[in-house]
């Protein structure tokens, strides 16, 4: 399969100098206490051993841009407050990267410091070296080198930001990730929708389809190389697969030849060897599973009514889905073979679009009630419900791969404009993403290797 082509492509894996482990780590962001006091962090322009041209600009320019991307990543988490480079009193030269002037950074009240260097390798690739320090103890917290093509410098910056985030929060990072979503334009009555792909921070945006066919609900395969989505191509609404490397698009078909009717709401199971989805037959919608090698289809639900939006647990043992079998749209959990179906949502209102968190302990959903659509979370047994957003229409949550941030789309009551937003698990740090056009149906990629 195309598994891993891009992984090999990108190069980040060069784990060079090992992370230095200080005996007692005093500097730490408590990720669970919200963002009352984000940690002040300084990310001065990365230095260069010798200014040199690269395919993406000079090493000096790249050094400034890498630092800016790292600062923007860390700032977007709401857990860090990057200091304004205009206030920096000291220039970090190449020799200072590993011997920072801690006194100067203390004066600026920086608690953490990220330094680094950009250098050109003989083969034209670049190395971005990344160092993190505790300013008050003058201790090195982490270091790593990332090798990439010059054009891939943003990924090295995201990797560095992930390193810093991980070292200071104790959680895996999520900055070296991508978003696939539906780009929208045109009149509401004949909306034009295109699949689009971009980095988590909106960079490297590109359209995957041309808008000829209505497309909905794209989702990443676990290997990040295939996207499944729904398309109205040939006026036959059904599930399609899009291979990112080749751009090849194929309709998902069963071993028997073709599905008799509309298939939708696709998601890959963990491992990527099978998918869950919905099919509507004569007005009755159920959840099915298809093995991608044999194309054998298994029906998982059979209740009369609408059973849809299946989402597997990260270990693949269970599936959460929505059903109106009890009268209104509610959340249910079943075993991966369809057995043991149990309702888990019992609050007032309706619940839809459940998505199992990558950490396995939480389910995000859309809650409809009180004239609002809101994003909420609950434990997998339905307890501990918390609503994170409050708006006219927030819908379709997707998890950052570390399970700390949720992206969704928000539709304005007036005018109906749609945009992508993020919110953290505490319900704070709501942020709107920049997209070229209106945007809906986001899906967050796994953390890139």
């Amino acid at each position, binding site marked *: 399969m195309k598994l891993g082509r891009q992984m*090999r*492509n*990108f*190069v980040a*894996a*060069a784990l060079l*100098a090992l992370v230095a482990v200080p005996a007692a780590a005093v500097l730490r962001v408590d990720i669970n206490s919200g963002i009352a006091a984000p940690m002040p962090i300084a990310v001065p322009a990365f230095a260069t*051993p010798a200014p040199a041209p690269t395919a993406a600009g000079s090493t000096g320019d790249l050094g400034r841009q890498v630092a800016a991307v790292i600062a923007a990543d860390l700032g977007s988490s709401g857990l860090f407050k990057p200091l304004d480079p205009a206030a920096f009193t000291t220039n970090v030269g*190449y020799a200072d990267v*590993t011997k920072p002037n801690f006194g100067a950074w203390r004066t600026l009240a920086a608690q953490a410091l990220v330094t680094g260097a950009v*250098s050109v*390798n*003989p*083969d034209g690739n670049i*190395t971005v*070296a990344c160092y993190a320090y505790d300013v008050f103890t003058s201790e090195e917290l982490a270091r790593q*080198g990332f*090798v990439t*093509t010059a054009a891939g410098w943003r990924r090295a910056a995201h990797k560095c930001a992930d390193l810093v985030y991980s070292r200071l929060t104790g959680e895996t990072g999520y900055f070296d990730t991508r978003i696939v979503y539906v780009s929208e*334009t*045109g009149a*509401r*009555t*004949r*909306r*034009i*929708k295109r699949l689009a792909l971009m980095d988590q921070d909106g960079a490297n945006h*590109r359209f995957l389809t*041309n*808008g000829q*066919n*209505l497309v*909905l*609900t794209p989702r990443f395969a676990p290997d990040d190389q295939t996207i499944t989505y729904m398309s*109205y191509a040939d006026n036959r*609404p059904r599930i399609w697969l899009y291979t990112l490397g*080749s*751009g090849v698009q194929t309709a998902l078909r069963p071993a028997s030849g073709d599905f008799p*009717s*509309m298939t*939708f*709401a696709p998601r890959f199971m963990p491992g990527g060897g099978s998918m869950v989805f*919905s099919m*509507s037959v*004569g*007005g009755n*919608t159920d959840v099915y599973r298809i093995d991608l090698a044999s194309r054998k289809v298994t029906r998982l639900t059979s209740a009369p009514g*609408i059973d*849809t*939006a299946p989402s597997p647990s990260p270990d693949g043992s269970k599936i959460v889905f929505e059903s109106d079998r009890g009268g*209104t*749209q509610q959340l249910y959990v079943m075993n991966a073979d369809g057995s043991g179906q149990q309702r888990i949502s019992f609050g007032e209102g309706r619940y*839809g*679009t459940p998505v199992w968190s990558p950490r396995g302990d939480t389910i995000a959903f859309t809650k*409809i009630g009180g004239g609002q*659509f809101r994003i909420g979370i609950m434990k997998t047994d339905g307890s501990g419900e918390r609503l994170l957003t409050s708006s006219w*229409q927030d819908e379709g949550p997707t998890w950052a791969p570390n399970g700390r941030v949720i992206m969704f789309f928000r539709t304005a*009551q*007036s005018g*109906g404009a749609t945009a992508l937003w993020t919110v953290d698990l505490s319900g704070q740090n709501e942020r709107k993403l920049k997209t070229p056009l209106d945007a809906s149906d986001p899906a967050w990629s796994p953390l890139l290797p």
Partner: protein
Amino acid sequence: MLNRSMTSKVLQVSLVAALIGVGACSTKKKDLPPPPPPASEPVVPPTTGGPAQVPPPAGVQSTSIPGSTADFVAQAGSDTVYFGYDSYELDDPSRTILGKQAEWLARYPNITVTIEGHTDDRGTREYNLALGDRRANAAKNFLAAQGVDASRITTISYGKERPAVDGSGEDAWAKNRRAVTILVGAKG
């Protein structure tokens, strides 16, 4: 062990980088086709083909061409039936319209139909796809019960993707919760 001098550290970095870089960057990421220009044409044709709106010249009596979409709409009263919130139940006015649609279809056995099911936008995307399917099938089943051969009727759900009218509020939503009977193979 870790060398604390930056020079040798970066040297290490570069060496390892060069080694890794050779294999790692030998394959180039294949570029996808460039983004097309934004389409300016509607992706899907307008769903309701009502009678021509041009007024006839004064003094001339016009009639719909028998067997045409205009004739179908004129005879049945409408090509569209409407539903309540989150409902796929056919009310009396809808049954009357569908009954007349069935009568008309009995006269034109060579014409097949596609019934489009639609919802308002106050539901989640996947649920609304299923709800639109329910509505289209409710209309289909009624037509079939009135004697229209089920093989002449196909259904398609657009969920909340193709509202008849733009707007937010009960007036707009009520107009968007609908099933539309589209003739296939009609002349005109």
